[in-house]
């Protein structure tokens, strides 16, 4: 910090931190926009902080809880599919900020997969921030024209008689895939089941994890 390098990016002292390392073009643009929004009073530091905290508090564990409950309780599953936001509220998960929330139920013969080819629409209030690959050009292009190839790379090889339905989440709807309950999990508790529900299985690029073989 004493080599003088950091003076180039030294921020004016206006109350929030700026990164000390070299920024990419887009990062510079984002910080410039943030500073303008703050300067013009459109948002406050507190707004930014509370949004960061809100996002950080969300995680795929929320989705896993919902899926595990749906697996063991058919009445809950019906409510989860019929009125997902109400079912979330029932489980203490706040999905109110989603405009419209739709649950896509996988079956032995149908697998759903979600992508946003335009940007990175994702059920953030439930699952938190999307993985980087979900936002990549590669995934966004290939999900719609080679979904089976993408699934194969995630380890899911589908027979021809299983139909794939790819959802391009372009508008106000947020989608969550309800994966199939793995075979041989009849004896597992709700908590144990939730551990099999990966983030990627709720995006639909793979199935839920198989039950561990009995030791």
């Amino acid at each position, binding site marked *: 910090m004493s080599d003088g390098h950091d003076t180039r990016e030294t921020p004016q002292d206006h109350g929030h931190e700026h990164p000390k390392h070299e920024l990419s073009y887009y990062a510079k643009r984002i910080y410039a926009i943030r500073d303008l929004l703050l300067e013009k009073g459109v948002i406050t530091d507190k707004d930014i902080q509370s949004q960061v905290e809100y996002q950080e508090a969300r995680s795929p564990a929320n989705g896993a809880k919902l899926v595990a409950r749906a697996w063991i309780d058919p009445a809950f599953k019906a409510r989860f599919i019929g009125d997902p936001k109400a079912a979330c509220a029932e489980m203490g998960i706040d999905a109110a900020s989603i405009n419209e929330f739709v649950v896509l139920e996988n079956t032995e013969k149908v697998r759903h997969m979600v992508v946003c080819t335009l940007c990175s629409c994702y059920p953030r209030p439930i699952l938190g921030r999307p993985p980087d690959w979900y936002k990549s050009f590669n995934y966004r292009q290939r999900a719609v*024209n080679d979904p089976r190839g993408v699934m194969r790379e995630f380890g899911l090889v589908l027979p021809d008689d299983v139909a*794939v*339905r790819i959802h*391009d*989440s372009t*508008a*106000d*709807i947020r989608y969550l895939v309800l994966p199939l309950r793995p075979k041989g999990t009849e004896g597992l508790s709700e908590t144990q089941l939730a551990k099999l529900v990966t983030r990627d299985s709720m995006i639909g690029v793979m199935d839920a994890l198989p039950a561990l073989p009995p030791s």
Partner: protein
Amino acid sequence: MNLQAGKFKAGDRVTVKFEDRPGHIRTPWYIRGKTGWIERVYGDFLNPESLAFGRDGLPKRTLYLVAFNQSDVWPKAVGSKDKILVDIYEHWLIPAA
């Protein structure tokens, strides 16, 4: 006044307009000009093409879940039973010929 939520109903065959214009367009390029069918009527939503520019998003637009055969979207997907489903606002849809 859009009390009846849209002019299309589930099962109607529709073609996505092939328009190229600037702005916050929520209709992906690859689906423009393609023909599919209404899978579900989602209801009326503020128009994101207006909201994105700080306007009021009115009038609301009916949003549909539109289904397409993979084979109708990608030439190489010939014979595929797979479907692609896209959320599309009504002003991008016309009845299929």
